[in-house]
Every structure is written in C-alpha cells, then in structure tokens.
C-alpha cells in the first residue's frame, strides 16, 4: 500500500525516473534504494526526500512553524492513523474536524505533502462513512474533497462521492 502511495506521489511531483523500492519487516515499512548512499527507511522520510529530489521544498512547509506542523501530521499519519482501531476512528475524525475548522490545508494556507499523505491514509475511513457521518464531519469532508480533486494527487485511489447539498439538517447531528 505504502509503495503505491509513493509511486503516486512521484507522479504528482513529476519525477521522470521512478525509484526502486522494497519493504522491510512485518509492517512492510517502505525502503528506498538510494544510489548516493545507504537506503532510506520509512514512509514519511521517503516522502520528504522525494519532495526535495523534485526541487519542491515548499511542499514541506515554507516557514519553521509550518515545517514542524507538516512533520507533525506526517507522524500522525504513520502512527495514529495507520494503526487505529474501530473505536479510534470516531476520535480521529472528531479531532480532525475541529482542527480543520479554520484551515484550508493541514499546514495552514498551502498545500503540502502532509495533505497528500493524510489523504491517502484517511481514504479507507472516508469510504466507509455514511452520508450522515460525512455531513457530521463537515470540515474533514470538505478538506478531503478538495484534496482528492487537487490536480495530480488522486492516482491510485477511487474517488469518494461527496454531495454538495446537505441532506440532514443540523437537528440530526
């Protein structure tokens, strides 16, 4: 799964030559075979490396603060999101919904790899949501829909239908 994400990311970044990947361990952590040195281990680490390789450092954040925030969400993706249980899903969506209340993107006002990787990671959760739940977590849904339509991002994932008009009134939530 992680390997497909990385290849989609490469396509988005416009990297002409796709890299060679392998996996390690039970958790199938991705490994990048680096020609210039020892291999790189870890989804977030490799994603950042790719952004640098494509000469798009702004995708990692343009200030010290936004860079820290990007790293924070990358870490969130590979820890909380990837190993969440059914019970955790509610809390994750609730927290994200609150967080995204006043933000267009995860790291403030710019699109970053945090948005990409969080989108890839949260996709299976969103797919399973009912219409009412999608309306309940309105900010998450709005952000998700925005990212999935962002040019060049959605490669290996099917689109999730998001209705423009609310069906459930606010009384239902």
């Amino acid at each position, binding site marked *: 799964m992680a390997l497909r994400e990385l290849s989609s990311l490469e396509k988005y970044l416009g990297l002409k030559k796709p890299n060679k990947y392998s996996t390690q361990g*039970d*958790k199938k*952590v991705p490994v990048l075979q680096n020609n210039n040195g020892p291999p*790189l*281990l*870890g*989804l*977030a*680490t490799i994603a*950042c*490396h790719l952004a640098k390789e494509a000469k798009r450092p702004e995708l990692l954040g343009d200030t*010290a*603060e936004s*860079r*820290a*925030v990007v*790293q*924070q969400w*990358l*870490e*969130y993706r*590979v*820890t909380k999101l*990837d*190993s*969440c*249980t*059914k*019970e955790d899903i509610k809390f994750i969506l609730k927290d994200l919904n609150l967080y995204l209340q006043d933000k267009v993107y995860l790291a*403030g006002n710019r699109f970053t790899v945090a948005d990409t990787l969080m989108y890839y990671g949260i996709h299976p959760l969103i797919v399973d949501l009912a219409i009412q739940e999608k309306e309940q977590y309105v900010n998450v849904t709005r952000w998700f829909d925005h990212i999935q339509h962002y040019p060049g991002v959605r490669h290996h994932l099917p689109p999730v239908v998001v209705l423009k008009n609310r069906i459930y009134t606010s009384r239902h939530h």
Partner: protein
Amino acid sequence: MELFVSEGNPHCLKVLAALEVTGVQCMVPFLSRPTLPALLLPTGLHLFSSNAICRYLFEVSGQECSEFCNQWLEWEATDLQLCLNCLYIGLYDPFCDLLPSFLIFSLLSLLFHFPVSFTGEHKSVNGWFDRVASIHSCLSAAQKVLQGKGLQGMKSYMQRQPAPQSSQGRNTQPCNCERAFSEEELEAAILNWSKGLSTSPLATDRQHPILPQEGKRNILVTSALPYVNNVPHLGNIIGCVLSADVFSRYGRLRGWNLLFVCGTDEYGTATENKAREEGLTPQLICDKYHAVHSSIYKWFQIDFDFFGRTTTEKQTEIAQDIFWRLHKNGFLVEDTVEQLRCEQCQRFLADRFVEGICPHCKYPEARGDQCDKCGRLINAVELREPQCKVCRQTPVIRSSKHLFLDLPKLETQLEQWLEKSTSTGDWTTNAKQITRSWLRDGLKPRCITRDLLWGTPVPHPDFKEKVFYVWFDAPIGYLSITANYTDEWEKWWKNPHQVELYNFMAKDNVPFHSVVFPCSLLGAQDNYTLVSHLVATEYLNYEDTKFSKSRGVGVFGDMAKDTGIPADVWRFYLLYVRPEGQDSAFSWADMALKNNSELLNNLGNFINRLVMVICVIMNSYLLHLICECYSLFSLSEKKLIRDALKHILNISRHGNQYIQVNEPWKNIKGGDTERQRAGTVTGVSVNIACLLSVMLMPYMPEVSQTIRNQLNAPQSCVSTMLQDNGTFVCSLCAGHRIGTVSPLFQKLEADQIEALKKRFGGQQPAAVPAPAAAVEVVTVNGVDPEKAKQLTQAVAEQGDKVRALKAQNAEKTVITAEVAKLLDLKKQLALAEGKSPEPAPQKGKKKK
C-alpha cells in the same frame, strides 16, 4: 511561546532536553492536560507531537534535520515508542546527531534505572548511552520530569495510557479484559506476595458425595451425554467433556463447591439396530460400549465426579415422574400419526429404514425423510413402492397414537425464564442465537413417544407398548445419573436458588437444552434447577474435511493413545484450537508446531532453565504477570478457554524473556551485586514456574503435577494461588531445595507427523477386527520381517556369488559390480530389520 508539559510524561523529557540544549526561550508552566506535551506557537497554532516540537526547537535555533535524522524520528514514533515496555531493543549504529539521541534517550533512560547493561552484539549501545546521559540538558530534563522518583515517577502516567495495539492494526474483537491497575491494587499485590504460604489454608481432598453447601458457590457442571453407540472422535471430545473438564478443574482450584457429572446416553433406535447387527441384546451392547467411552475419557484425564448411564431404574423413576406431572398439569396432547410398519420385522420403521421412489423426482433410492437426489423433505408415507431396508418387504401404513409435549402452551413461561437466564448468566453467543431463532420460527408440539422396545417405558395405560423418545428422556439422564451418584440428588436438581447449573455441549444440542428440556421441567412444576450458563462450541473439523468413521478419516477414541503422544499434549492442542466463535480444524502439522514451539521451546524451555533459588524482591516484571493473572481469571470465568490458555503462554514467554535478558547463569559468576541480582532473578523465575504449574492444572493435569514435583513445591501452593480472587504469593522462598529438573516435552518430528497424518487420512479399512492386524506388519519405520527374511536369503546368495567370483579371479569390474549389489542388499536388509543402514567399516582386501 508556551510549552505545556506534565509530570511523569516521558515525551516531555525529550522536549525539555531539546529546549535546554537549543537555548530557545520558553515558558514552562506545569499543567496536566490530555495531550501533552503541547507547544503553542507564536502564530497561534498548536503542536501536539513531541517529535515535531523538538524539531521546531532545533530548527529555530539553527540546527536543521538531515534525512537520516528524519528516518530516526519516524522510526522512533512508529516503533520505539511502542516498545516502551520491552527491554530488548536492537539498535543500528551509534550516531552523533543530538536530536534523535534525546528522543531515544528519554525513553531508554526510564527503563535502565537498575544496573543492567547491554552485552554482546549490543555493547556499542552502552557507549552511546553513557555519552548522552552525561549531557547536562538530559540530566536536568530527567530531573524535572521524574522528580527523582525513577520508574515510579512514570507509573501514574503509564497507567492512563491505552493498552498497546497489536501490529495488525484494526482489531475486530478487542479483549475487554485488560485494564489498568490502581496504585492500591498494586500495593496489595506486593503485600500478598511477601505474605507467602504460611497464612494460606491447606487444600482439602474431595469428599464424596459432593452436595451444595450454605455460603459457598455451588456449581453443577454437566457435559452433553455422548451417545453410547458412537466411538467419540476429537471433535466430540473437545466439544463436550474436555471443555467441561477444564472448567471443572479450574472451579475446584478456585475453591468452588463443584460437581461434574456425565454419562452415556443409551436408549434409542441406533442401539437397537446395532444389537441386531452384532447379535447381542441392547443391554449388552450398551455395557460393552459404555466401558469403551469410560476408558477413553479416563485416558484423556477427564476428571468426572461420576460417569454414569441412562439405562438405570432411577432414570425410569424420574422420567415417569416428570411425565405424570406434565400430564396432570395438562401439558401433554394426544395425536394420531401415520407410520410405516413392517409386518415381517414386527416393528414401526424409523424414517431411515424405509426406501422407495421419490414422489417428486422418481429417484428410486429415496429415503424415508429426504430424497438424496432432489433433496426435498418428504414423509415416509409419501414414498412410492416403499420397502423395509432390513427385510425388503413392503411395509403397511398404520396409525399410531402418540403423545406430544405442548410447547406452545409453555411458551410464555419459557420466554420469561430465558429472559432472566440469558441476561444474568454466561451463555455463549451461538447458544443465544440458536435459541432465539427456534422461538422466532414458532414452537410446535413435539412428539415425546416412539414405537420401540429399547427405551424408558411410557407408564400411561393407553401407550403401553411405547417408550419415550430419546430427546425427551436423555436430558433427564442428567438427573438420574446424579441420583445414582447420591440419594440426595434433589439438593442439586430441585434447588435453583443455591445452585448454578452449567451445561457444556456442541451447538447442535442447544435447542434441546434451551427449549425442550426446560419446558419439560417448567411444565412439571417441581422447582427444578434450570440451566444458568449454557456453553456451546462450534464444530471441529479434521484437516480440511470432516471426521468420518466409515471412511476412516480422523482420530477416534483410543487411536489417540496409540500414537504415543501423551494425553496432556492432546488436551493442550484441542484446547488451543477449541472452536469457540467459529468452526476450527484439527491439523497434524499445526499440532506438531504448537508442541514444538509453545510446549517445548516456550513452556518446557522456561521451566528447564532454572538453576538455583534465593528469596526475592518484587520487580516491575511481576506487575506484568499479575496483570496477566487477573486477565486469566476473568477470561476463565467467562469460559474463554482459548484466550486464557494464551495468557498462560504469555506468562511463560515473559519468564523466558526475563531470564534471557538477565542471564543469571552469567551473573552468578560475577561480583556481589551481580550475584544478588542473579539470585533475585532465579527466585522470581522459580515462583513464576510454580504459578504456571497451578494455572496449567485445568488444562494439562499431569504436566502440572510433574512441574511441581521437579520444583519440590508444597501442595498448598495450589490452593493459595487460585482461591477467592487469586493471589501470586512467594511459595518457594530462600533456601528452598528443588528436585531434579528434566525435560517436560518431547519434540514431534516432521516424519512422525507425516506418518500419523497418513494413517488417519482415510486409507485404513473401516472396522477390521483383530485377526487382520497380524498380517499388517509394516510400521512407521518401514520395518518388515517378511521382507527381511527374503533379503537375508538374497544377501546370502549374493555373498556366495561374490566369493565365487573372487576365487575365480574374475574381471575386476565384474567383481566391483557384484559387490555393489551385495552392499545394496545389505542396506535394504538393515532397513527392513529396523537397524541403521550404515555400512560396517570396509575390511581391507586380504592378500592371499
């Protein structure tokens, strides 16, 4: 900027250390909030990830993160944090970037408060660790967060964390038996430990007859009565008697006042037919097969308090009493049924003894209840050209009066009782579901009489020639078997307020135990004890198919004993694969694997590593064990027998790791502190072994006792460990001498397993009597006396030939060829005789 941290939080360590080393100005008030540490940035954004906070602080002070730094941080977040409780960590190369050092240091420092250092391939970690530990910022950060309390300072924070997730991500069935333990519980556990055995009551021997007692928890356990005619296979055994046995043993250890009864179910058509086949009376058939059942269960160490039979006077007495009460209370109805009767055989034919042409699809071999070809259910009377399967005569249709139990009339009462029982008792999910679907389909009157000879006679004058239908009278067998055990059986069976009744069975028996039988008892209105906890298993399959006696597939009855694998290993494996939530399967390969890995390498290995004993002080690993113990108890009570077994194996694994890490065999040769540590470790381990032996008792009673013998442990530890709420006490204290330690388990080799799998895979002929055995001499090793004889002859002849050739000074090549043949023959002979085929050392050629 504001930094929010909390006491005892290891993640704060890293942040504070980073703060100090980077020199960034920050307010550090101490607060307790749910997600900490948190950094409030000047722009108003919050950072809640400790790693992100550290990165930010480093970047702001001018030290950026390299890619390898990224990699370490990611690994720290995904793997290392999760391994907080695991001592054994492999690290790659020591490195000099400070930031990752802080992160890893903060976690490791909390673990290494006792004098343990890495050895062997991980020695390089020590150097790195010492270097980082001496950095002032780390020390002061550690001081701030832990307040000098070491590991204890972290305790309250750690307890509030959720239990670690399994690496498989989303769990479908979270075990809700894990919980955090409060300070008081841990203190109490430590206190109990030091009390030791002296204050504990001695275990008392069982006194028969066991009767309910005031003030005690009185538990009556039954296992579904196996039908006498069928030799039980592994599926039957785990489904009923073995499950009930584990629970009963456990209950006795806990000090409950427990009675476990079972017996053979002997009445019915099948026995009658078998009797006819073998030319014996039904009674003799039952006597013969009852003994077979009894010996099989004995071999499996099933500890019944009483194993009886349904063909007794008490059965007739009690069944007829219930019958009359039902009749008096108006719960029986009469009806006429049309049945096929064979005048030749002088009996009414059961459905499967009639064959004819299916009225729907014209298939000529349709049976009396269902057509094998089109699958439609039919009544025997509908068959065209029916024939009695035994004598091939055409049966005639006769009407016969029968009595029916009016279940619809009892429905309301039943539902009321079910509501109470299923909500207060521990019924397995499948039992509840099956019962519900029976009720949903609507209850109909059930026929309780049959036109047979072998059964409990119906006492009503209008039904003189009839007997009770086996499904009406078999459950009454529980009562009559108890009556044969003690005259005071009514203290168990007519005492619902003092007695809890547990019924163990496979799922196909559920409706009879949850609907039909309770209705009989409710209708009889004699204050009968009804089932409080109904435990039903799913089916056990054999490899990838089903057990089948006729096709010779699967392990039946005493075949298990013949394999040479001890009963305890069979018990262990069957319990390990007990079909609880869904069907499971017996697999030879899997049994060998579990034996070799869990029993031999885990459990057996741990017990065997003990060397000496010195008395102990508590240490944090024991907290783990106590947590496992509590989980174990709650699981066993809920009859999650498999999960409980896994907890026991976990404890053993902890024990192994504990010894592995602490290497007492090495430390004992060191200085004073090391020797004391070694002593502590061995002392704790020995007591863990003692605990394990007690916990294993319900599962593997022989192994359990063997361990105690090897440890020379007093019998009183058995009762102490599991009485009341269970406590882990120091049973083997300073100066205790253990017995001789020897291997507990044998390895199951691959070729042994292959041979067994073949043997039970459906190639043996069905039920061939003893004389055939003399002819079949080929055993597992290929030893074959017949062949050996022929080969001996051949070897002798070939030997002569070679000698002749040599005497004649024949061509060298010819001689070599013949010699080769001779050697080959000798090899084959050795194999056939079961000897090693190694050739004897070559004798040099003698010069003539």
